[in-house]
Each structure stands twice: as C-alpha cells, then as structure tokens.
C-alpha cells in the first residue's frame, strides 16, 4: 500500500479474481467509510481523500465489454446509461470490470438475479480457459517437454557439458518458470470453477451464495504477493545458477528480461495514468513491442556469435 499524502491519493495493489466482485464492493465501501473514495482501477486501486461517507458500490462483469477495451463500447454504453438512469454512477472501469457507486440506499441493486451473477463468472472462466493465449501456452508446454525428451535421448555422455546440456538446462529453466506461471493461472481458474459450482448448489438449495468478504480478499492478496516474491527469487536464482555453470550470457539475458518486465510495467502504469487517445496508446504499444523484439533479436544474435 503506497500513500501519497501531498496528492491526497492512496493506491492499493490488491489482486482480485472473478469471484471477488462482492469482496471488492465491500472493500470500496469500507474505504469510503475511512475517507477514501475510489477513482481508478488501473494499475492498482486508486483512492482520493474525501469526507468519510456511506457509499454503496457495485462491481459488475459486463458481458458486453471486452478485456482490451480502453473506452466504453456502444453496447456497454447502453448498460451504463440504464444504470445511470436507475441512480448509479460509473466510477471507473478496467476491461470488463465496471465499478458503479451510489449514496442512495433505496436504489435497487444493479443485478437482482443471483443466477445472472453466477453465469457472468462462469462465462468469463470458460472464455479464459478457451482463449487463444491458453491454448497456445499449452502447445508451447507440449513443445518444451518434447524438446527436453529429445535432448535427453540424444545426450552426449562423452562431451559432458556440450551444447545439448546447455539446451536441456535452458529448457529446464524455462519449464520451471513456465510451470510456475501456468500452474498459478490454472489454480485460480479451478478455484473460480469450484466457486461457480458451490454457488449454483447454494442457489438451488435456497441458501446464501458463498461470496467472499474483503478480509478474504486481503488475505489472498498477501498470498499473491508472496507468490510474486517467490517467482522473482526463483528467477534470480536461476540466473545465478547459469552464472555458476559458466553461462554468463544466459544469466545476463534473464536479468535483462526481468528488467524489461519492470520497464513494461512502469510504462504501462504511466500510459494508463494519463488520458491518452486510443491511437497514441496503440502506437506506444506497437513501439514497445518492436523494441522488445529488437532487444530479444540482439540477445539471440549475441548468443549465436558467442557460441
């Protein structure tokens, strides 16, 4: 949690999932009661200082929106207009997630059908599982395994640390990091599927839907933070491991990738903080993409020259 008193803003970095919409509503209401009103969901949750007040928040997963949307599309505009007519005010949105607020306790909830809430989560989970990114990630996973088996079969025992050993080690390192990221993603999705299943059973039995509270969200967020630290440590450890094995170039590349990740996150934060046009944002990302490809190309060329 970063506090910037001079600007009277507060930014928190809670990691939330599809099943945390109610928890987020609770969290924002709690923050408003403490004198912090939500202003943005981009690069963390940004709050602005205000008089402590009682506000009702509604966080909705809009089926009409796309994750890549940086402005409200026409269909979502219809949804937002209807909510505005009903007494809700749009605070901000991030991809498919829209946050509305009202100070009127008599305004009806945005979604009054519990099944609809569950359906929205189920559809999004299904979409993520079947996304081209997930499918291509699984194909890459199979490719890495296949190549590792191939390296193992054609192991050159006489030459010892030969090129096959190097390739095998690189593949192993990639695999460890890959499994870490993929497993974490899968665990999150399985968790969401389990929640949908429990929620539907509860609804069928006429019981309360097991929504998570904001304390659960805070607890889980701490776990995610630990996971990120573990990931970073693992990454650096692997870089050191390659250095010890006398592969300083690979080690340097790994550190370079880490630095690049930090730069991308930083640029992303700056770009989203400012209200740039869609064209400027698109051009910036294309430029950044070209830069990354160029860096990777130079690194690969360097390795080839050294080998």
């Amino acid at each position, binding site marked *: 949690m970063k506090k910037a008193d001079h600007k009277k803003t507060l930014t928190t970095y809670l990691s939330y999932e599809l099943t945390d919409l109610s928890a987020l509503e609770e969290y924002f209401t709690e923050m408003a009661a403490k004198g912090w009103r939500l202003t943005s969901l981009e690069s963390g949750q940004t709050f602005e200082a205000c008089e402590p007040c009682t506000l009702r928040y509604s966080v*909705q997963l809009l*089926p009409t929106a796309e994750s890549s949307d940086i402005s409200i599309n026409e269909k979502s505009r*219809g*949804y937002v*207009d*209807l*909510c505005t*007519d*009903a007494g*809700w005010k749009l605070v901000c949105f991030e991809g498919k997630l829209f946050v509305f607020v009202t100070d009127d306790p008599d305004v*009806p*909830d*945005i*979604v*009054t*059908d519990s*099944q*609809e809430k569950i*359906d929205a989560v189920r559809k999004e989970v299904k979409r993520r599982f079947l996304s081209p990114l997930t499918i291509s990630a699984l194909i890459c996973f199979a490719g890495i395994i296949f190549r590792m088996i191939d390296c193992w079969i054609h192991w050159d025992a006489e030459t010892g640390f030969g090129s096959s050993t190097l390739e095998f080690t690189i593949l192993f390192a990639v695999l460890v990091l890959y499994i870490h990221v993929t497993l974490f993603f899968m665990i999150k999705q399985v968790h969401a599927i389990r929640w949908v299943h429990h929620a539907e059973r509860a609804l069928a039995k006429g019981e309360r839907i097991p929504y998570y509270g904001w304390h659960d969200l805070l607890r889980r967020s701490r776990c995610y933070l630990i996971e990120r630290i573990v990931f970073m440590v693992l990454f650096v450890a692997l870089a050191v491991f390659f250095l010890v094995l006398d592969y300083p170039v690979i080690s340097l590349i790994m550190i370079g990738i880490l630095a690049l990740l930090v730069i991308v996150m930083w640029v992303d934060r700056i770009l989203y903080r400012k209200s740039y046009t869609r064209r400027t944002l698109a051009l910036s990302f294309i430029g950044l993409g070209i830069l990354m490809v160029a860096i990777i190309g130079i690194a690969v060329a360097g390795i080839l020259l050294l080998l």
Partner: protein
Amino acid sequence: MPRETLQTLTEPMYYVLLSLTTPRCGIEIMSRAKELSGGRVIVGPGTLYTMLAKFEENGIIVHAEPECPDMTGGGTKRKHYVIATKGIAMLKQEYDRLARMAEDGKSIMELLK
C-alpha cells in the same frame, strides 16, 4: 439465461413483458414492473439490460418509437421497446398457465380454510 428458460417466464420476466404492452424505456420498465407487482418485484438495471437483450434476440420484444418523446425527460436518446406478437403469445400462455394453477389449487385451498 439459456434459451429453454424462455419457455417458462420467471416472475421478473413476466412483469417486464406486462410493462411493455406500451413502448417504454429501461427506467420506465423498472418502475412499471415495480408498480404492477405492488413493489414486490424489483428488477435491477443490469438484470433488465440482460433480459431485454435476450428478449430482443428471441423476437419477443422490438425497438419502438416512444409514444411521447418528452415523457422520459431525456428526449429520444433512450432506447424504447415494445412487446412483439411472439411476446404477446408468450405472455398469454404464461397467464393461462398461472390462472390454471390458481384454479387447480382453488378447491384444495378452500378445504384448508
């Protein structure tokens, strides 16, 4: 809301269709449904939006010109809907089903009194 669920209308669906016998925009549908049900059925704007989209997709309702553009206070920008022939048939079918159910239970309920 799978397609087959439209075979039988839920309570909010029934009141929304009842509200659409004259052209209305979203906020008017919400207040009309509440009024018709005596404040018992409240349809949230998000739920209504999803419901209207499904109804429109299935030809149960259609876009309509508002009877009086000024009645919403916001001019003609708001989308107005009205029940279609298919919707009227569904509404009648549902009304008959509910009436039959009430009739079927009538004698039993009298015995219970």
